[in-house]
């Protein structure tokens, strides 16, 4: 349980800073730090067990069909990374409080930081790779927010976009790779994947899975050739850089490589790719770092280089190299975070990070300088710092590994990287703190203790790790290595001094040459500038431009603002694909015997055909079109009657009435005469596409209808009466078996009605108000008003219609009827009142609110479902029973009826809201005038009052 809490705490706590910022920056930072500290303490409670070799885990089944479980575990590797993430996170939280100025959005900053932290912890504690992928994507998103925190600068925006694009693409590759792994292994649980290394390595999919996963890891941890995004991410505030590039974001890639090490490594492919990429990255990063002018730029490329070092060690594939990698992860986190914070302090105090404008700061900022020297010495790999140990270890491993078919390539190139590594560390210290001051515009001084605290702690650790490695880190490194290699760790003892050996000789060589390089910096730099270096940023921009350009071109071609073009493209594509499917498979008529056709059916069918033709030919005469549509609806209802679908028939005819009224209402507002359209090619293409679509769908229907099939309805059929308590299976399916679907459907209807309400309210209140007030339909209406006979008849009809609706509703479970149908009948009865007696009058009589009906219906339907849950059944389980009521006798009541009541209310509300709102709109036009009289006789002014309903 507490494992889940460790992951969730940062996410939950992310709300706090956003709220606490109202109480000031201190409260905000303290809340963030408290959350962070709590998670760290919880984590450390697991440490003893993990160091003993246990690996606690928790599992909640989630989407089992997909293999996605909320499954967490913690082993040595996870513990180490989580401790780094939370520990350095805490220091960054403290540092940020003093770094960020008064005008910054500090609350947002801490919220983003905690979100990012939660996602990172999630990655390292996940025991399910799908869950891991979710957290992986979350880190990409959260880091986008963090890197782009200074969104007002173009560098901030571009850097954030680039980081998101590169790591996001890598994330996609990673998803594909992990899915492949899951398919091969048969499970997405990490523990099971880790136990199936042999299966995976022997699988024909291994190379694909490896390639895809490596792309994901390499993009995330900025390995060559994807390294270019990392330096641009330096546009972020310095605490973010310190966090993302020392212990978290880029380490996620390294973590995943380490996590997959037991199953993926050990093959020639892994060794060749991972070792080479790591080596090249280490080399390139170190060389470029030496020639950076920006302190953070130098540190960024140095980070690239050190990530390469870790990747290379994992590529070497021996447990010893893996242990060296673990040690370096710890050391790198300590010294790199410290140095980033240091660069931030220099920037804060002097206003610049340009090496060309800094210098001589030792006199002004002695403490800062001292801390920087300690951390830089660790970065350079000098004794007695922690960095020395891991660098020596790396050189030792490199010295006896054969790469690219030769013994000497790896040790030589590793030494070259060490030379540059020493040189850029020296340059950082010398450029910033020694030599003359080059810019005297400010008087820098050591910052307040708060800003110094975090880098000081980290620098102290950098020394301590070097002096007492075995005491402080021995068990941790062993436990993490155990987790990494998935078995017994190799025997080693951490010590500062291993005696004179090859690695020491290589180190000494590196120190000497590195010093020379700095001594002769100008000529070396001149040499460097003559080497043409491909610009990663340029290539990225070019690729992005190409992508955008081609998408835009395709978009313009297919979707250039013309609906006709767009639809024609889609329909043609569907026709081609469907035609291909027809061609490939048996598409003849099936063997099912056909039903007889009587003359009534033939006549009704003829009516439908005539109506279709009428709509097409005379659709510009809008009333004719509406009448023809009505005829078609009627024929469809009749077809349902004949073809054993009484529920559908009633629903269709009721909807038909409502739709016709709606269309007439809308026609009132739309232009009265439709121009002849401009047809490209005389409309031939349009006609061809239409006919082809008709033939295809018709034939598909025929081919379907003439084949026998096995219905899945048998189960519904058997269970309908005994379990659903209803004989009308259609209704039982709607309100019971598939009640959740219906619940969604009424939501859609309710939302559609609310959108209609919003669209029209917007017209009546917004800038269109004036246009509406001047608008008139331009038609002449009969001055005589509502016929008295109609008014009287509709009023008599109302109670009768309501009784019919109630009857349809109650019997719906057993016989054709139900909530949908009853709702439509009630709506029609109400609309009749509107039509006969006038909108204003009817509106005054109706005392309930349609919004409330929609919401109430949704609530009733939902409450029925939840009531079932309260009784310990799944959502929307129904129950029924027989009750003996006085007068009525034995009555069956099903809880599904309550659900149906919800359906009823929502549908009435939705239908009436849509229609009433269109009528409301009429009130706002120049023609409009509310008539509150129930009916009246020829009016004094001929123009002012007439019905707007059906007034076309």
């Amino acid at each position, binding site marked *: 349980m507490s494992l889940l809490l460790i992951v969730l705490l940062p996410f939950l706590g992310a709300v706090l800073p956003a709220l606490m910022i109202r109480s000031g920056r201190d409260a905000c930072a303290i809340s963030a730090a408290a959350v962070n500290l709590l998670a760290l303490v919880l984590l450390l409670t697991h440490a003893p067990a993990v160091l003993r070799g246990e690996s606690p885990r928790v599992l909640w089944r989630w989407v089992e069909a997909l293999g996605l479980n909320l499954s967490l575990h913690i082993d040595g590797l996870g513990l180490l990374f989580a401790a780094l993430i939370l520990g350095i996170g805490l220091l960054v939280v403290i540092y940020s409080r003093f770094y960020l100025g008064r005008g910054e959005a500090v609350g947002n900053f801490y919220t983003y930081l905690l979100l990012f932290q939660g996602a990172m912890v999630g990655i390292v504690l996940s025991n399910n790779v799908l869950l891991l992928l979710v957290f992986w994507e979350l880190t990409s998103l959260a880091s986008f927010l963090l890197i782009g925190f200074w969104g007002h600068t173009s560098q901030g925006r571009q850097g954030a976009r680039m980081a998101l694009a590169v790591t996001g693409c890598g994330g996609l590759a990673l998803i594909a790779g992990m899915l492949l792994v899951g398919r091969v292994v048969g499970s997405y649980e990490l523990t099971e994947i880790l136990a199936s290394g042999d299966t995976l390595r022997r699988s024909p999919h291994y190379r694909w899975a490896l390639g895809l996963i490596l792309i994901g890891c390499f993009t995330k941890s900025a390995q060559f050739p994807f390294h270019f995004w990392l330096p641009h991410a330096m546009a972020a505030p310095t605490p973010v850089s310190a966090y993302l590039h020392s212990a978290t974001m880029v380490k996620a890639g390294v973590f995943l490589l380490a996590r997959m090490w037991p199953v993926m490594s050990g093959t020639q492919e892994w060794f060749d790719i991972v070792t080479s990429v790591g080596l090249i990255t280490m080399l390139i990063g170190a060389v470029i770092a030496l020639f950076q002018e920006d302190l953070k730029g130098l540190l960024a490329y140095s980070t690239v280089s050190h990530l390469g070092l870790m990747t290379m060690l994992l590529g070497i594939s021996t447990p010893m190299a893996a242990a060296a990698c673990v040690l370096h992860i710890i050391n790198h986190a300590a010294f790199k975070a410290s140095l980033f914070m240091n660069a931030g302090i220099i920037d804060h105090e002097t206003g610049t990070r340009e090496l060309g404008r800094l210098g001589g700061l030792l006199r002004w900022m002695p403490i800062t300088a001292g801390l920087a020297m300690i951390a830089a010495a660790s970065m350079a790999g000098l004794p007695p710092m922690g960095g020395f140990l891991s660098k020596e270890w790396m050189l030792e491993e490199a010295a006896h590994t054969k790469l690219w078919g030769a013994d000497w390539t790896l040790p030589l190139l590793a030494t070259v990287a060490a030379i540059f590594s020493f040189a850029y560390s020296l340059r950082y210290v010398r450029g910033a703190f020694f030599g003359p001051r080059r810019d005297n515009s400010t008087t820098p001084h050591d910052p307040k203790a708060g800003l110094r605290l975090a880098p000081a702690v980290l620098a102290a650790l950098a020394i301590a790790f070097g002096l007492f490695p075995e005491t402080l880190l021995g068990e941790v490194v062993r436990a993490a290595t155990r987790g990494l290699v998935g078995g017994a760790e190799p025997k080693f003892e951490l010590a500062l001094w291993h005696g004179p050996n090859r690695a020491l000789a290589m180190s000494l060589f590196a120190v000497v040459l590195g010093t020379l390089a700095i001594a002769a910096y100008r000529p070396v730099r001149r040499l460097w500038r003559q080497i043409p270096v491909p610009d990663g940023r340029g290539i990225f921009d070019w690729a992005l431009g190409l992508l955008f350009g081609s998408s835009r071109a395709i978009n313009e071609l297919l979707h250039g603002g013309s609906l006709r073009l767009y639809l024609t493209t889609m329909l043609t594509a569907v026709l081609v694909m469907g035609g291909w499917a027809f061609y490939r498979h048996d598409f003849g008529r099936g063997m099912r015997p056909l039903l007889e056709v009587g003359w009534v059916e033939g006549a009704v069918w003829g009516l439908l055909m005539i109506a279709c033709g009428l709509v097409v030919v005379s659709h510009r005469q809008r009333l004719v079109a509406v009448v023809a549509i009505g005829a078609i609806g009627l024929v469809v209802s009749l077809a349902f009657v004949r073809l054993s679908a009484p529920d559908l028939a009633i629903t269709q005819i009721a909807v038909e009435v409502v739709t016709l009224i709606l269309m007439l209402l809308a026609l009132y507002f739309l232009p009265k005469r*439709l121009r002849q359209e401009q047809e490209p090619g005389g409309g031939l293409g349009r006609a061809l596409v*239409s006919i082809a679509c008709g033939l295809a769908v018709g034939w598909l229907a025929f081919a379907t*209808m003439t084949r026998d099939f096995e219905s899945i309805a048998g189960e519904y059929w058997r269970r309908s009466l005994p379990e659903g308590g209803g004989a009308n299976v259609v209704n039982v399916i709607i309100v019971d078996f598939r009640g959740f679907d219906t619940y969604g459907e009424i939501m859609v209807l309710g939302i559609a009605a609310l959108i209609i309400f919003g669209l029209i309210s917007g017209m009546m209140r917004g800038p269109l108000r004036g246009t*509406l007030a001047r608008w008139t339909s331009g038609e002449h209406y009969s001055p005589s008003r509502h016929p008295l006979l109609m008014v009287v008849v509709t009023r008599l009809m109302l109670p009768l219609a309501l009784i019919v609706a109630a009857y349809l509703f109650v019997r719906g479970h057993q*016989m054709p009827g139900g909530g*949908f149908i009853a709702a439509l009948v009630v709506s029609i009865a109400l609309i009749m009142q509107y039509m006969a007696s006038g909108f204003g009058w009817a509106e005054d009589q109706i005392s309930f609110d349609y919004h409330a009906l929609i919401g109430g219906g949704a609530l009733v339907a939902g409450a029925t479902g939840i009531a079932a849950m309260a009784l310990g059944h799944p959502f929307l389980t129904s129950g029924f029973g027989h009750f003996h009521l006085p007068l009525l006798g034995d009555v069956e009541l099903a809880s599904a009826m309550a659900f149906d009541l919800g359906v009823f209310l929502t549908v009435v509300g939705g*239908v009436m809201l849509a229609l009433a709102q269109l009528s409301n709109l009429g009130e706002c036009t120049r023609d409009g005038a509310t008539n509150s009289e129930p009916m009246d006789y020829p009016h004094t002014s001929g123009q002012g009052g007439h019905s707007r309903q059906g007034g076309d």
Partner: protein
Amino acid sequence: MEWLVAAAIAALTASGVYLILAQRTYTVVIGLGLLTYATNLFLFATGRLAVNAPPIVGDPQAPHTDPIPQALVLTAIVISFGMTALTLVMAVRGYFESGGDDVDLLGPEEEVAKERR
């Protein structure tokens, strides 16, 4: 009977497609309506045609048709009313916003916004 239903579906689809390829909002809405009939009938027909066999439990020997397509179509009919209403209201609002009932944008969205001002 199958021939008739298939021909009806074909006719409704063809006329519906023809109308949604028009340039006027009202015509497109009518076309969508026709396509709705066609789709509902098609969906209904996947349960195969049967006469005098309503899906109501009664006599176990009596024939009965497949209730599932009917349940699907029933909700589809009601939802399609919501869709028709929404598209109609969008057509009305579009007419008042742009002064025309053309389904296509006049140009880039900025230009439309400028004209309104």
